[in-house]
């Protein structure tokens, strides 16, 4: 049990624990997300637009009878979509009670990340989106951005209310 917990937190703790992450591509950048929060990866479905909400909310999809909101991280992080339509996927993730999907240009692989390889965001750069990023991982010459999915997903409620 204890091991599981530390795994979930793995990416941020200083222990040299390993985390499994799903690596995906947004535009030309590579991102990674803790696999424990990924419920499933699906092909694009019909998306229903929701009026009167923030731009980065792409709409909602029907996931086997459940209505799941869909976020567009491209809009959120000001990135261009790239690659073929065929490769695009929806990653459905869940934090606590909140379930949401994100559109990615391509899902690349599942790898193990060692927490030693993760640099916190302060050491890397400070940008507008810094608070949405947990850190950056260096894996054999590649840089993987670790978005703070919890903040992006759950934090929205407060943003939207304004």
């Amino acid at each position, binding site marked *: 049990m204890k091991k599981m917990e530390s795994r979930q937190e793995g990416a941020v703790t200083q222990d040299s624990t390993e985390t499994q992450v799903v690596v995906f591509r947004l535009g030309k950048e590579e991102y990674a997300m803790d696999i424990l929060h990924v419920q499933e990866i699906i092909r694009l479905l019909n998306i*229903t637009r*929701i*009026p*009167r909400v923030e731009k980065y909310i792409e709409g*909602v999809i029907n996931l086997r*009878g459940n*209505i*799941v*909101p869909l976020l567009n991280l491209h809009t959120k992080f000001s990135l261009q979509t790239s690659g073929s339509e065929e490769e695009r996927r929806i990653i459905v993730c869940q934090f606590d009670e909140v379930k949401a999907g994100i559109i990615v240009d391509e899902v690349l692989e599942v790898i193990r990340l060692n927490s030693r390889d993760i640099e916190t965001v302060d050491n890397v750069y400070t940008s507008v989106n810094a608070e949405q990023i947990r850190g950056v991982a260096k894996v054999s010459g590649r840089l993987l951005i670790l978005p703070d999915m919890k903040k992006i997903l759950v934090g929205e*409620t407060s943003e939207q209310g304004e």
Partner: protein
Amino acid sequence: MSQYMDIFLDESKEHLTILNENLLELEKNSGNTSSLNEIFRAAHTLKGMASTMGFEDVADLTHHMENVLSALKEGILDVDSQVVDVLFQCFDRMQCMIDKLESMGNSNLDNTDLINMLEDIQSGNYHRQSTDYGAAVEDKYEQVEEKQLMGFDFNSFDVAVIKEAISAGNNIYYARISVDQDCMMKAVRAFMVFKNIEEDGEIIKSNPHVQDLDEGKFDSEFELLFISNLAFDEIDKRINNISEITVSMTKFDESMLNLPEQDNKSKKIEKNPEVNAEAEADIRQTPKGRKTVRVDIDRLDMLMNLVGELVMHKGCLEQIGATNKIPQLNETIEQMDRISADLQSVVMIVRMVPIEQVFNRFPRMVRDLAKELNKEIDFIMEGKETELDRTVIDEIGDPLVHLLRNALDHGIELPEERIAAGKPGQGTLILSAKHEGNNVYIDVQDDGQGIDSDLVLAKAIEKGIVSQSEAQQLTDSEIHRFIFTPGFSTSQQVTDISGRGVGLDVVKTKIESINGEISIETKPGQGTKFRIKLPLTLAIIQALMVSVKDEIYAIPLSSVNETSLINQSDIKVIQNQEVIILRGDVLPLFRLKDILSVPGEDIPGSQLYVVVVRKGEHQIGLVVDTLIGQQEIVIKSLGRTLSNIPGIAGAIVAGDGNVRLIIDIATLF
């Protein structure tokens, strides 16, 4: 323990409702023995349950109440307003204790005040009961026994058996056996008692019935009447040898058999066919009660969701069937359609609860209020059995309380005023519910002074709601609607009950939030009627599907007045606002594609579809591209992330698997 706690709380609340209801009945008609019996039964059960659960204070108070009740039952005391008041106080205290138990798990209230009052009543000190004074202060123990004896219903067969036994020189004993509270297997103890007695005798009667005793369906006590050829001491000793029980026994003779027939009012039941029918109805109800199951509301919601999903997927299948044109598939789909429709209606019915649940607390409230206001009220409730979806039931209680209080405080006048106005001194307040089509109508009607249009209008002008010149063109019904404006009160003085002006607008908002409507009919001097129209359920609604460019939306049919096809040239502009004239009415016109900023190309055409929707009192024209049709939809929430989007009430999953949004007219503009 905790699972018993829930049951205990649920059931004791039910019993309290029964107590309150029947005491009200008894107050109206003091000779009503069936109400008294009902009260007695409920109090007794409550006592049993409370002591089983170890809530001694509840049990103790109930015990003292029982003593008074039994005195009432035996006719030693009369039912008068003082006794009724004290009993009501006791019920309130019990409610309070049960509430405390629910919230804190214990109820340490000091009930000595009430207990003293009860004891005073019982001993006749409280209000002097000169006759039969001595009889009332008989030994308490004996009284309990006697009351219990009357619990036996002797039929002619029993009487014959008893008489025969006595004449044959056998002994008949009456035994009251209470099983220890911590006894785990009550049924076994009861069985042992039976076995011991039956070795040398025969049991004539038992209360509760033998079957119930076998199944352990009794409180801590039961009573037996049996014939035995053993001497009193011997049988007493034998029964007392059984562990975990206490026995009190008396010898039974014929005089005790006759006594109830003469004195006990319950015996009159047999002679009075009407009351008898009522008693029979009671009996018929009891077995019905055993067939019900208590189900957690969450499970019902879950079931409803699943059925909703099934209905949706059935929609998918229908579309596949329509495109592929396979006859066998279509036949099967038709079958499925029927079954799913049945299933849906069954689930709906399961979720329906009689409005009685809400109504039940009103008689008591009205009575107390009327007393407080010194008004005489005849409160009539009709259509208690009308059923509504649970979700609606939960919401409707508060608005009704408001309306009833309003009617009592503002509507019905004081007796003197009423008589001066040539009306009977007693005001009539009618609360009725009835079912019509897909709606339930609840009326709150009083025969009071009605709403004074001039007064309301004057107030409206004073508050700046309308201008003097506008005011002259208003019809009476338009004026009456002002009372739903926030902060509006015409009451001369603020009372505890109403007049703070926070009433009717809250009522209106609440009712509209559950897709209901409220209207008033009033005649000065003759009374007021508030009518609430409610949908049967909130989970599945009828909607009009419309399309705007490439998007499809659902508009709840409850807010649609009509649809109309207009020409582009019919549109006029008043101060930059597009309007149309529909049968003489000027309606503002809004284009849904602009309101929801729908992307994409405009669909050209010289004709426009207009959906005329209702927003409160106003009609608004909503321009859409096409009308797709009417459809039954299962409402789904958009989830926490997307809650509270103005103009969007939720979503549905359409037959083709796409998500469609439901438009909320109230917040759209």
